[in-house]
């Protein structure tokens, strides 16, 4: 019998037999729309996924299954739009709760997505095929040489290629970078006049070391910005989220967040039980909304947690006991060979700054008002705040999770998140005396460098981490 590679792919990525028959045709259509050829599917099935993902774990397979279902769903956005479903986009980083709340309020009337990040992580992460999107953007007004963000380029290209429709509203966040929101203005003015945007921003004007979540005026300003944005979006699409729906969404989000906390705690075991890659991928359900909901991925996470607990109990894992564990800013999910290369050199990229929460970050908010609470949560996050406070949080994370070293970088394209990494490295190293490193690179787009170019750098970093670890 001739092997159907599309079917094999779905099987590998955790689809049950009954699901395969239901999804096979949709997956063929979706992959065609996304520009994935049969060869690409074969490469992912036979080489890339087995190489970078431990598919012996059900939790990993089910995780991939959720990503594939979501990307199939994304390719139906045009269809949804034609049916009158309201299309709402956003970008990273943002507060996904608001989007989940809209979905909860009107599940059949709303489509929510941060399309660029899904496309980037799936297309590059699993197929290594983001280049056509990036090149599409680069030939149409977003030049290669300036180091623009691959996510912004992908969003623009996805619209140009007709993969996604114009949104009813793109609620765009510039709480971190300038380029994200301005890309939406670019798309509207340069290519698609129907691309409607609402922008939420906050200036980076806090003195080094300011504990931003404790500055009431700043929390209030951000809360006002969020309220303004959320109300504008609801008005635009004609859907009202009730306070109960909002509270319920926050409860679901918090419950999931607690489970991610548990996964992180398990990652501190003497033997690192799983690669940091799936762990970070589970965390992504908190960063952006899944149109198919958080429930399927939460079910997968429950399975993952069981498996990880079992591994910890059995003292099984991916590296020998007491191997160094490092933390990265954001896990390069779209460039999975980076974490693999660390692991091959005896170091686990076990944690991300975004998700290894401190006690303060996990504590309940001091505010009852949901906007104030969300603003406060946001201002406890390292990526959003001044480097002085950010360094303070990172030092606490390192102590809490027993982290041996920090790997900054891979954010060349981001004039906020990436730009202070060298400064942060100095501030953190001065306080913790733990080794910190900065690697120039791009965690979404690896066209500019290859594994061999980085291997020597990663090998030497790993050697230092191992020596420091063995020296106690």
């Amino acid at each position, binding site marked *: 019998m001739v092997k159907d590679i599309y079917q094999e792919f779905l099987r590998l990525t955790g689809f049950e037999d009954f699901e395969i028959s239901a999804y096979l045709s949709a997956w063929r259509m979706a992959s065609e729309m996304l520009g994935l050829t049969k060869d690409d599917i074969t490469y992912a099935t036979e080489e890339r996924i087995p190489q970078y993902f431990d598919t012996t774990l059900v939790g990993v397979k089910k995780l991939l299954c959720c990503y594939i279902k979501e990307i199939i769903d994304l390719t139906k956005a045009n269809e949804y739009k034609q049916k009158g479903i309201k299309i709402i986009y956003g970008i990273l980083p943002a507060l996904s709760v608001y989007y989940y709340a809209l979905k909860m309020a009107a599940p059949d009337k709303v489509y929510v997505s941060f399309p660029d990040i899904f496309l980037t992580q799936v297309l590059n992460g699993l197929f290594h095929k983001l280049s056509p999107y990036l090149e599409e953007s680069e030939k149409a*007004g*977003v*030049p290669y*040489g*300036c*180091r*623009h*963000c691959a996510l912004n380029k992908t969003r623009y290209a996805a619209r140009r290629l007709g993969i996604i429709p114009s949104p009813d509203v793109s609620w765009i966040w*510039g709480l971190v*970078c*300038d*380029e994200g*929101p*301005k*890309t939406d*203005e*670019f798309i509207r*003015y*340069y290519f698609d006049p129907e691309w409607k945007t609402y*922008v*939420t*921003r*906050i*200036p*980076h*004007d*806090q*003195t*080094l070391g300011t504990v931003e979540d404790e500055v009431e005026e700043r929390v209030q*300003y951000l809360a*006002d*910005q969020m309220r*303004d944005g959320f109300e504008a979006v609801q008005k635009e699409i004609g859907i009202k989220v009730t306070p109960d729906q909002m509270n319920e969404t926050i409860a679901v989000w918090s419950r999931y967040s607690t489970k991610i906390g548990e996964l992180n705690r398990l990652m501190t075991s003497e033997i690192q039980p799983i690669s940091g890659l799936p762990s970070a991928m589970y965390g992504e359900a908190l960063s952006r909304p899944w149109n198919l909901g958080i429930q399927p991925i939460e079910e997968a996470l429950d399975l993952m947690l069981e498996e990880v607990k079992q591994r910890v109990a059995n003292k099984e894992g991916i590296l020998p006991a007491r191997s160094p564990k490092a933390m990265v800013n954001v896990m390069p999910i779209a460039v999975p060979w980076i974490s693999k290369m660390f692991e091959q050199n005896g170091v686990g990229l076990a944690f991300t700054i975004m998700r290894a929460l401190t006690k303060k970050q996990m504590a309940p908010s001091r505010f009852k008002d949901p906007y104030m609470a969300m603003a406060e949560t946001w201002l406890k996050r390292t990526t959003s705040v*001044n*480097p*002085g406070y950010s360094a303070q949080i990172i030092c606490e994370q390192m102590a809490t999770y027993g982290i041996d070293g920090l790997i900054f970088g891979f*954010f*060349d*394209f981001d*004039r*906020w998140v*990436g*730009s*202070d*990494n*060298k*400064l942060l490295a*100095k501030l953190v190293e001065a306080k913790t005396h733990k080794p910190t490193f900065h690697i*120039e690179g791009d965690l979404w787009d690896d066209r500019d460098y290859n594994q061999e170019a980085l291997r020597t750098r990663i090998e030497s970093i790993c050697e230092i981490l191992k020596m420091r670890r063995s020296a106690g």
Partner: protein
Amino acid sequence: MVSIEDLAQLARDWPEYLRKSKKNGKKIIGYTGSFIPEEMIVAAGAVPHLICRGGESEAVEATLPYMLRFISPYSMAQIGYHLLGLDPILPMLDLIIAQCDSCHMARLADLFEYFNLPTFRLGVPSDWEKSISREYYYRGLARLRTKLEEITGNRITNTGLLKATDSSNSLREVLHLISLLRKRARPPLGGFDFIRLNHFSFMSETAVAITNLRRLYEDYQNKKTPFPGDAPRLILAGHVVAMGDYIVLKIIEDAGGIIVNEFLDEGIRHHCWNLPAAGDMGHLINELGERYYLQRTPPSIFQPAWEARTEYLKSLIREYHAEGVIWYQLCFEEIYDMECSIVSKAMDELQIPFLRIESSYEFSREAMAPLSTRVESFIESIKIKTRNLKW
């Protein structure tokens, strides 16, 4: 009779002037952008100093141990000279008011603070159409007033602020008059001189600058053009021409073009609008804020901005009979890079020749030759186009 060289000399003496002023008990306040009303600094009895140097790659490279390589060379140069020990002014500043309108400028503020330079950050929200954002900026100005009063020990009074705005308006007016001379078919000066004059206006006492510029304006009225008759009329657009970053301007005009106007967001005294000339204190600060925040053409970082900016550029082209646009961009400035594509498309539609020049402040011999060739070819192509149209 006064010459540009006289003003240039005053600018060269500026560090010495600041040193003496400081010795005489005056506070010296630096500031980094065009959203910071220098009138408030003057009204507080301090001497304002615009931090806006550039044009040398060494200053940018000096920041690399602390900052990402892909940050604007302009932002990094503002601290880079200090790190190299080549900035006589930064160490004597009693306060730096750091404009935080973009990531690039906010990171500059981080570095000021990291190197223990006394810094006050002024947040400039870019979502300018919202009332909460405007109010945020106005509150920032109110805080700035308190800070300036604290540093100088002087109260900013209504009279003081009005006097400062009056001087500042006079300075803007005379600069505007000089700029308008470039509307003439045979302008007595081009952009190389005008931008330097504009810069010099930041580097001498306001009263002295006004007097000198008025004299210069009188002289210019009867001055013959130094440009050939067929010199293409150009508009220079982009983010900033920093003090000292004059090579590109010189190349353009040496190659036979005239810069008849510029459309720059920073490093320039905006002279097309004036400040309020009356009002009580609370009202005045808000009015000042409103003029600075809302009256000008929105800078590129604002959102939305690009439609209004393109329209404004088109109006400049019409008013100044410009035949071409040169987009001067600093490398890794991602917002201007995207805007460049928008402007380029609009110019295409208008059939206005457009040239993009990108600089990292690297003006080595190897870099200069291709740059000059590009500019010369661009100017030549406009001349050919014009000649063909005349035939």
